[in-house]
């Protein structure tokens, strides 16, 4: 069955599941008519180094998809829908086996003025070491992104997605398989679109895999940003940490739901997740639901937690006592809060670049 038929067979998802509780499907569907599979534009994709130079040999962006195996189970609705609408907008980002770059690579996706979507397959070769930033810009209407792929054995990947759409809605689904002894840091920086529905999943199906998922989310005005993260430990000696920081201002809402699954036989698994929400106004709302499903008793640890609160008055006083006025102190504390996860996403060079991108957004934040 093709993706379009599969999607149409599924019907409307139930809001009883966490995935759809806060953001119903029709709210993020391009037209709101969930029985429709619209024909969308293709976004413009370009690959370069962070300093603007051409991407080096060893990393290529090829039009067309590839066959993938061992991907984590994803939500069938969004996966099949994105697959169907991106039938003619498929790309493979291939990093050669053993390729090593100190300079981060930027995959820029210019979403355009009309609704658009694409499917990107990540093919990270064995023992490659690379930092990839996927930067989504433009996008005034609707943008859909399906990312699937495999991180080869022994590879080290810092993979950051920064959403800087001007407005509109972004629908994102990631389904990534992590190879033996591979290390992945996956960062999400989100502050652009009015609505975001994101579902990011990793599967560690081989021994020794490690995944660190980090989020720095800034929501302002009436934004609605909903992120779901799942990490599947399907092999022994696998490690994961999920750390998600959301700062919510205006009358915006952020949602963070996490699921750590440790399957039977994943001995020595070590998994933990924490959601922190900083509430910047009385009307802002933040919901976090961290969940665990642990089917193996011989684990190093499995923990979860969530913390919500406004800006700390004692921290404000400390900064004010050092000469920062109230607005500067508040901005500094928001930036620090987001930086706690941002700084863990990659190298110092990448971090500096991410900070400069986020600072531009903070400057527009209402006092």
């Amino acid at each position: 069955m093709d993706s379009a038929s599969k999607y149409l067979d599924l019907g409307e998802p139930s809001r009883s599941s966490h995935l759809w509780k806060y953001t119903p499907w029709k709210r993020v569907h391009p037209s709101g008519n969930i029985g429709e599979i619209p024909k969308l534009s293709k976004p413009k994709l370009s690959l370069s180094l962070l300093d603007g130079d051409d991407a080096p040999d060893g990393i290529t962006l090829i039009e067309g998809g590839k066959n993938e195996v061992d991907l984590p189970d994803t939500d069938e609705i969004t996966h099949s829908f994105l697959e169907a609408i991106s039938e003619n907008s498929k790309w493979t980002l291939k990093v050669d086996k053993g390729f090593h770059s100190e300079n981060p690579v930027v995959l820029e996706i210019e979403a355009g003025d009309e609704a658009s979507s694409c499917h990107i397959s990540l093919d990270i070769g064995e023992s490659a070491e690379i930092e990839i930033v996927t930067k989504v810009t433009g996008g005034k209407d609707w943008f859909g992104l399906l990312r699937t792929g495999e991180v080869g054995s022994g590879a080290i990947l810092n993979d950051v997605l920064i959403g800087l759409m001007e407005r509109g809605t972004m629908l994102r689904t990631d389904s990534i398989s992590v190879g033996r002894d591979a290390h992945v840091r996956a960062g999400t920086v989100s502050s652009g679109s009015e609505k975001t529905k994101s579902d990011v999943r990793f599967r560690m199906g081989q021994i020794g895999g490690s995944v660190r998922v980090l989020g720095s989310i800034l929501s302002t005005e009436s934004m609605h940003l909903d992120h779901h993260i799942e990490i599947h430990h399907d092999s022994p000696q696998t490690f994961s940490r999920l750390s998600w920081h959301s700062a919510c201002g205006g009358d915006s809402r952020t949602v963070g739901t996490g699921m750590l699954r440790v399957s039977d036989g994943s001995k020595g698994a070590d998994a933990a997740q924490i959601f922190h929400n900083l509430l910047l106004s009385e009307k802002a709302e933040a919901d976090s639901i961290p969940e665990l499903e642990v089917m193996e008793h011989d684990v190093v640890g499995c923990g979860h937690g969530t913390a919500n609160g406004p800006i700390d008055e004692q921290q404000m006083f400390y900064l004010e006592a050092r000469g920062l006025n109230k607005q500067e102190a508040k901005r500094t504390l928001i930036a620090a809060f987001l930086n706690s996860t941002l700084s863990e996403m990659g190298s110092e060079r990448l971090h500096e670049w991410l900070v400069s991108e986020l600072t531009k957004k903070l400057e527009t934040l209402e006092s």
Partner: protein
Amino acid sequence: MATLPLLKISSLRAGIDDNSILKGIDLEIRPGEIHAIMGRNGSGKTTTANVIMGHPDFEVEDGEVLLEGKSLLELEAWERARQGVFLSFQYPQSVPGLQVGNFLRKSVSSIRGEDEAKGAGFRDSLKQAMESLDIPRSFLSRYVNDGFSGGEKKRFEILQLMLLKPKLAVLDETDSGLDIDGIRTVAEGVNAAIRGTNSGALIITHYSRILEHVMPDKIHVLMDGKIVASGGPELATKLEEHGYEWLKED
């Protein structure tokens, strides 16, 4: 014409949550002077420091606090800092995500102006101050007070004092939790920042040890929200030997 006092506190009454803590304090510090306040726990020492800095939780019921003749009481904490008031916190706040180097630049820029926070001049004075306090270079990339030991926190407060060059430094138990070497290092930092300048300092402490290194011009004893004794360095020695009971009897 006599110079204005650097700090003049008159009949100061203040408290928190409807509890009066300071019950009429008078204190005058002239330019170049270092004073110390000693007292038992709960006597009002930290309240005095917070009221001078403008902590919003504390309410001034009566009295006046003047810096070089200008009232501080109507000013926000950040305005007081820009007027030249510095508080070394008893429990400095940690700010995860905010790097020390970045924080110092912001703070110096806010108080002393943008030009003072950039270029070789800033780097040199930062390097010199860090060396004098035995603070390694790697400190700059750590987050403000996050995971710092007690001694590191206090040395970081003094580093800020040295860079911000305030008119008035209030040190709230900066010596507590420090070993002998740490106390000496902090005291040297205070002396370097205040002695030989027109600035002044108010050191709040439980112990006489830091005062042996700083040698204050005057010592005041605070008891139940009032200054009950003032004197020279010999007062600290007497308190060390006899405690505070004899003051109650007087």
